[in-house]
């Protein structure tokens, strides 16, 4: 998306902390990618991506943090893992995409607001009910995304076929509390992590808004 017109100064542009963070969080050896393109060849979303998968890997290899975290591809990735399956170097490419999406979110990037809004709505629904409540989720997402009628046409047939329920099906027994405990644990760990790498790790420059 930001093809440099002038020569890219690789030494200046490289962010070694970013490279180390991606390698650590994904557990992948990023230098073993030799840019064969098999991830891109197998990816169902390549036509919709701004950077094809192998170029996302290239951005990480060169440590070009800004370009990697602001790209749309990491938000559109469906984590189908075709890239991971095809990679001749055994790199879990989908995991790298996932890690980049987390980092982008923490750094305040959301070039695909719809994806972020949906994810947020989905998690909010699970947090509240212990399990997703489809009608509630659809309603919240419709309002937040600013397109209130986008899925309305589907709603009625699904209701009449018994595919949707107007009331939430909360898990039986202790289920809801257990799910709540997962959310609580995540918040606790996230807070600890934020404290641990507080200076360089989450700059959160806020220019794109959002964030956690």
């Amino acid at each position: 998306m930001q093809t440099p017109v002038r020569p890219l100064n690789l030494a200046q542009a490289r962010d070694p902390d970013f490279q180390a963070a991606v390698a650590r969080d994904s557990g992948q050896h990023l230098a073993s990618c030799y840019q064969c393109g098999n991830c891109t060849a197998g990816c169902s979303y390549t036509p919709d991506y701004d950077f094809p998968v192998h170029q996302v890997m290239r951005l990480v290899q060169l440590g070009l943090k800004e370009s990697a975290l602001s790209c749309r591809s990491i938000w559109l990735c469906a984590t189908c893992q075709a890239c991971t399956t095809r990679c001749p170097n055994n790199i879990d490419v989908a995991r790298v995409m996932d890690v980049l999406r987390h980092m982008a979110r923490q750094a305040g990037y959301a070039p695909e607001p719809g994806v972020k809004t949906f994810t947020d709505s989905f998690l909010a629904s699970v947090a509240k009910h212990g399990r997703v409540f489809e009608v509630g989720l659809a309603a919240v997402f419709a309002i937040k995304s600013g397109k209130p009628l986008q899925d309305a046409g589907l709603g009625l047939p699904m209701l009449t076929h018994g595919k949707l329920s107007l009331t939430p099906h909360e898990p039986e027994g202790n289920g809801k509390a257990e799910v709540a405990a997962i959310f609580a644990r995540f918040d606790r760990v996230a807070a600890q992590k934020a404290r641990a790498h507080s200076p360089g790790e989450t700059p959160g420059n806020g220019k794109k808004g959002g964030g956690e």
Partner: protein
Amino acid sequence: MRIGVMVCHAAREFPDVVFATDHMYACSDPGQGTIEQTIRSLKLDGVVVASCSPRMHEVTFRRAVERAGLNRYMFEMANIREHVAWISLDRKRNTEKATDLVRMAVEKLRHNRPLTAKSFEVQKRVLIIGAGVAGIQAALDCAEGGLDVILVERRQSIGGVMSKLDKTFPTVDCSVCVLGPKMVDVGQHPRITLLALSEVEELSGYVGNFEVKIRKKSAFVDWTKCTGCGACLEKCPSKKVRDSHNEGITTTTAITIPFPQAIPKRAAIDPAVCLHFTKGKCGVCKKVCPADAIDYDMQDEIVTEKVGAVIAATGLDLFDHRKCGEYGGGRYPDVITSLQYERMLSASGPTAGHIKRPSDGTEPKTVVFISCVGSRDRSVDRPYCSNFCCMYTAKQAILTRDHIPDSRAYVFYMDIRATGKGYEEFVRRAQEEYEVQYIRGRVAQIYPTTGEDGNQLMVRGADTLLGTQVEIKADLVVLAVGAESAHGAPALAEKLRISYDAYGFFLESHPKLRPVETNTVGVFLAGACQAPKDIPASVAQASAAAGKVLALLSKDKLESDPQIAQVQTMRCIGCGKCERTCPFGAIRMRELRDGSKRAEVVETVCQGCGICSVTCPVRAIQLAHFTDSQLLAEVNALCRTWDETTES
């Protein structure tokens, strides 16, 4: 005793040491000269050199010591490079360890005794295993050099992979036309004994005097009578047998001669498919054979040969693309291997040189080549480059455009490795002159689709230079399958007592300076059994191996290593434990006149491993140059603490 120590700056006072010095490069010519001069001027009895690993330079220094008039075993080497300098940066502790090593060497040397090598006769014959182009070249070179050659080939004919190829790169000359005359030479050479359809069962002995047992598998045809007329092939009713010479793209008969230029041109029956063996019926070949050569009762035969040296030239096999599910895993008939395509291109092949789709026999107009199938791919445990696929793919793409001028040829590649003479120019010609479309990227998926001209294959890949996904509707897909070690290579390596790598390729003794030797003296390597190689490299290595064998066997006698086990007969109680434990069969029990038994070492067979020495319950066996007293002297030197020695 007067000992000289040539060592780095950490020289210290040790018992009997009358001289210590340091050199910048002790192995250099002046360095060795200084050692010789010092021995003479100070009348030394022995020398310790503290330097690098003895693996490379022990021989060098032993020769220097010998030139100065000492026995070559009055020399010890302390390895203060690999064992000290290369493994730690701690200067103080490095110095301590280096000093320990030198002190151990000095103490050992004080107990050394002069040893003398014995000489033994050598067999001026060589065993060559595998008769592809490398084995053929090595056999002809050795035979021309005056050696008798036993050439063993497990298939029915010699020729190997090269005999299956249509053309060779970068000259595009006919493969079997250049190989054929060499094959004929092998068949006719008076010094070459060719054993086709045979495998090495067992190798024993040692350099100069190997004994090899070879299993001559039964062909069920008496080859002394068979004339290769082919009458049996025409009449054989089993016609659905996989034709391995044609890589399975066509069928053959149960009794067969693999190809017209086969050497030896003799028929053989495959008992796994022959009706006579599977159903107990038939017998047509026996009836029609004009030479009465068919013998259904023929048995395998074991022949024993004595040879002085061995050359392993067992070649390679190809990656099995059925492991690649994304390319159909062998389910799509129009996805074929490069070697199958090669057979199709060959004028003497099953399609007489016409390119036909296996599914419907039509001529393909769009042919896609995929490089690196089973090469440079860690996910299938084949991380290495197969060396020659870039080149044969360029050749096959050129031939495609040559055979079908209105066709399109696409090559998916990652990098092009065209480093040989004329290779880069050849690949450029494919692109510029023959308009082969090269696409930089891998292919993720092939799936069947319906096109205007019937059933086609959709090839979905990436063009990384464009940064996009690409699709090609192909009529035929050719997979450039990579090289693997020959089937059964590790088992053969174990018979030959040579090392092999994780992928079954045989290990050379030194990757740069001893590329055709192995770590077993007298066993040499030629061709792709060592690593994937193209024809010029295989032939070059074969001639190199032949040169090594000719040099080795140019001597009438070889010297045996005196560092072997010695039995003190007075102590031996004849229990026989040593005989049972010896891995080389180098110990036999000798009966004395009173009927009691004593162990005896066969000096030329003993490898000096020392297992018998530690097995002997009465310590009657000592390993020369590594006796108990020598080893204990080293241990004692080591166990004295640093402070004791510095203060003393």
